[in-house]
């Protein structure tokens, strides 16, 4: 169960990703973040971030029609 939670619903690109990275900065290595957003580009954004920066990984995500929930783990 992720200890850290972030609700980025009601925000559109690029805000959800900015909010996620800001939260990641405050987290410790190995901790997970449960982030929810309703921006359609949320998962592609997170994927691109993880691939490019590499300090976090997208473990899993659930895409619903209203909200997307992503579990992200901080790697270093």
């Amino acid at each position: 169960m992720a200890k850290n939670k972030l609700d980025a619903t009601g925000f559109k690109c690029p805000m959800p990703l900015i909010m996620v990275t800001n939260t990641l900065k405050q987290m410790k290595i190995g901790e997970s973040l449960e982030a929810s957003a309703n921006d359609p580009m949320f998962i592609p954004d997170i994927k691109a971030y993880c691939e490019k920066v590499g300090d976090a990984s997208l473990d899993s995500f659930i895409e619903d029609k209203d909200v997307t929930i992503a579990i992200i783990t901080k790697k270093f």
Partner: protein
Amino acid sequence: MKEQKKEKMSLILFSGDLDKALAAFHLSTGATTMGMDSCIFFTFWGINLLRKKENKVAVKKNFIDKLFGSMMPKGPTDLKLSKMNMGGLGTKMMKKIMKDKDQVSLDTLMKTATDAGVKFIACTSSMEMMGICKEELIENIELGSVATYLKESIDADIRLFI
């Protein structure tokens, strides 16, 4: 872990239009989020984005500079769309649409960019041409010249002119 030289994006914001400024700030904020260094070089009409809404510091200016200054937008909230402005109606409508669709406004985006560490550089020769003093501009910006821009851009991986 990919440990290499930090990538960089340098952007020239020449236009003082709402839509173009939005694109510039979206890109630069996105770049810092993706772990890149990012800077915006404000020149010509772009300088208007850095102007304070209200300037309390008295500045001495000649008549032309004053007139010119009063006709140009002051800060991000004053900007107009580059197309379909329709005497301000189009801009008003676009701002409403943005709000309804959860898009952040330009001034919030500008603040986000500053917080994210985007470097703002104001072109001094443009300022002089348009009769704008540094007292009229917001804080935490750097004043620069062509050389400053070139120094920032020579090793940049992405360079854009907006």
